[in-house]
């Protein structure tokens, strides 16, 4: 057990730190489920590591260059999402006249990501401004010093505030900052990659140069070339965000002056939660009912088939709409249950996940039923039955492991569809709470501005790009997973 003390100590230190910090931890429902999911994933990874026959297909997945690059992108998203899942309320400074031993906490719920992006979060402008602009998007009437009024584009409060004369200095300043961001990013990337390769070389007992050559030729154990290239792009983006995003608004500002980069980052958690928690919620139903229907047949099969045919015959969007409308009524009638806006929005997000889960488990259930019907006629299961092994044991020992590939494939395939569905549902008006930042809400509010002249394109494009990257990475990764695990492709 001695080798496990490090993570435990780290956890304890983290816990102590949070306990001492002047904050009150807020554990939202979705946060709890997200951490449960992380726990399940860690357990799954540990389990797979010990089984060679499970490690082989995963090794095959990770050795595909595109899948490895996608994994890097997905990890970056997951890190942002996890940082955004630790919520707390800051303790307010004690005011005169209140009891000393009583603490007051801010109404605003923040997350670790909010803390890290404080400069982005707090630099509010008045309204729209284009990416890297120094002026507002629209003209305003301003009173000059001599008392006369004129209409001009006012300077932004924060974006480009360090410039004296934006008209002449801005392009040069942006160019200079981009250059330094490029250099900084490349330097950071080169350092990281060099350290990494040195570590790899030591582990493989090669020389540094041999390892480097193997990687460049693509002969290393993993497709490090694509991993490092993707890392490079990520690091460059971070460098640009640091150098330009702190002096300007890298992706512009939205209608109420929020930084679009900050909104795009905040949306990541919403997208990930919908993509993963929905699956987590529906999985037990789909697996249990699907296997039971196929294994027991008879009236059990009839009942389960009836349930999933009924559910899948209702058009998905309408069922979601009906359920979300009900939740809305419930929330509107019970305002006293929710201490903060965030908690209310969170409950709605959780309900959305549940309802999406209810509408999406039927496909997997049907697949599992069919597969179990086939499996239960197999000789080894007949043999187990003849030996008098109990139903529960047969299902858990012999059937479940043999349908896991179907579960896995459908889980990864569903993820991207769910992320895309969120945007559409928000457009219909039955998506996440309007107060919650999500790509769907960003698109929905930006869409109305397409009619303006010149077009307000930045928040739309930003939301699309962030969403596209996540969905593309997920799709490429799920392709590799399917190829590795689906016996029909003949390689797994």
């Amino acid at each position, binding site marked *: 057990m001695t080798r496990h003390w490090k993570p435990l100590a780290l956890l304890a230190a983290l816990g102590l730190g949070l306990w001492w910090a002047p904050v009150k931890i807020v554990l939202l429902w979705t946060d709890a489920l997200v951490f449960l999911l992380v726990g399940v994933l860690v357990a799954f990874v540990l389990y797979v590591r010990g089984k060679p026959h499970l490690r082989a297909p995963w090794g095959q997945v990770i050795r595909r260059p595109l899948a490895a690059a996608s994994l890097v992108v997905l990890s970056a998203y997951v890190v942002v999402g996890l940082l955004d899942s630790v919520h707390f309320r800051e303790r307010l400074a004690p005011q005169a006249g209140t009891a000393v031993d009583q603490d007051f906490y801010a109404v605003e719920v923040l997350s670790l990501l909010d803390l890290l992006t404080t400069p982005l979060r707090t630099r509010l402008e008045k309204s729209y401004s284009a990416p890297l602009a120094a002026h507002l998007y629209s003209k305003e009437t301003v009173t000059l010093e001599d008392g006369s009024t004129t209409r001009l584009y006012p300077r932004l409060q924060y974006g480009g505030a360090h410039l004296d004369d934006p008209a002449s200095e801005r392009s040069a300043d942006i160019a200079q900052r981009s250059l330094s961001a490029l250099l900084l990013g490349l330097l950071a990337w080169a350092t990281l990659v060099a350290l990494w390769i040195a570590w790899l070389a030591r582990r493989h007992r090669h020389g540094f140069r041999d390892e480097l050559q193997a990687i460049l030729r693509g002969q290393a154990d993993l497709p490090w070339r694509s991993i490092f290239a993707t890392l490079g792009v990520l690091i460059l983006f971070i460098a640009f965000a640091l150098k330009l995003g702190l002096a300007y608004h890298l992706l512009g500002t939205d209608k109420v002056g929020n930084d679009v980069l900050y909104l795009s980052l905040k949306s990541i958690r919403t997208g990930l939660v919908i993509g993963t928690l929905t699956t987590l919620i529906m999985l037990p139903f789909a697996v249990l009912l699907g296997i039971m229907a196929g294994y027991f047949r008879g009236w059990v099969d009839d009942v389960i088939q*009836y*349930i999933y*045919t*009924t*559910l*899948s*015959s*209702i*058009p998905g*969007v*309408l*069922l979601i*709409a*009906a*359920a979300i*409308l*009900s939740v*809305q*009524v*419930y929330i*509107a*009638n019970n305002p006293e249950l929710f201490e903060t806006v965030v908690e209310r929005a969170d409950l709605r997000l959780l309900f959305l996940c549940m309802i999406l889960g209810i509408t999406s488990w039927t496909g997997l259930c049907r697949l599992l039923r069919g597969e179990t019907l086939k499996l239960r006629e197999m000789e080894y299961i007949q043999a187990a039955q003849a030996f008098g092994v109990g139903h529960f044991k047969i299902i858990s020992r012999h059937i479940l492991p043999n349908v896991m590939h179907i579960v896995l494939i459908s889980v990864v395939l569903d993820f*991207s569809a769910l992320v*895309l569905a969120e*945007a*559409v549902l928000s*457009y*219909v*008006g*039955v998506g996440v709470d309007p107060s919650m930042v999500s790509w769907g809400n960003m*698109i929905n509010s930006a*869409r109305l501005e*397409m009619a303006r002249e010149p*077009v307000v394109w930045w928040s*739309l494009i930003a939301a*699309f790009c962030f*969403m*596209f990257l996540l*969905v*593309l990475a997920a*799709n*490429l990764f799920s*392709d590799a997973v399917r190829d590795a695990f689906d016996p*029909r492709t003949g390689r797994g």
Partner: protein
Amino acid sequence: MLAYIVRRSLYAIPILIGVNLLTFWLFFVVNSPDDMARMQLGMKHVTPEAIERWKADHGYDKPLLYNAEAGGAGKFTDTIFFDKSVSLFVFDFGTADDGRDIGYDIRQRMWPSLMLAIPVFLIGLLVNITFALLMAFFRATYVDYMGVVLCVILMSISALFYIIGGQYLISKLMHLVPISGYDGGLSAFKFLILPVVIGIISGIGAGSRWYRTIFLEEVNKDYVRTARAKGLPERVVLFRHVLKNAMIPILTGVVVTIPMLFMGSLITESFFGIPGLGSYTIDAIRAQDFGIVRAMVFLGSVLYILGLLLTDLSYTLVDPRVRLS
């Protein structure tokens, strides 16, 4: 055959009852008519009298399932469940919150929906199968690989982006067709051309990739090897043998969606201002008109079950081995 159809239609009845019970539970038990009234009238300062009046106006002032005050059969028929849910079985949809007849509206709005959905469906099917056959023809080459990557990229783009991007590019920048709107007769063409094209393009990624998998699965079967061994050129193998045999898995996925064409496409119709059933549904959801949503749920379920039945029947047409019993 006829007996089979009758039996399957009878099997649909318990499913439709289930759908009805579920929607009834969602709309009347989870939120009571009082909640609905409060929501419709605005949350604050609603007097109990106003709620009662709203309920009486919309026919929600009866007991839910069992009316003890009425006599005889009225104990069961003079209830909300009978009024609002059972009547759906005879396609009596009742009236919307604004007093319009839902059945009439659905019949009117069906046509624009079909005008949009049928071309998207047919041309899209043709385009997708063509692309998939091309990829299968060039399988395991760079053409195939690039085709798959292109499909993955296309299917990673949100449908909203296709619509917004298309509207901006074609209508706003190039002024080729109106941004949105609809007109009857021949002039509908200029309003429909862009949504149809966008509908086809947004479906190419997922569609072609799916058909490609089906074709590739067929390509590895024994009869294909036999055909090749006979000396048939790859072109003939693919078009005459593989395409025909791939019809069965293709039909499974496609036929079930045909009746759903009536329902229209939610976001396309609403973005382009086409007065079809899709935009009808969205408007109802936004206005929280429970009557219309309930009607559309029922209609959708009926059409889905019809689709399942059609799928089974279509098997007998393309595959003589299948006998329905």
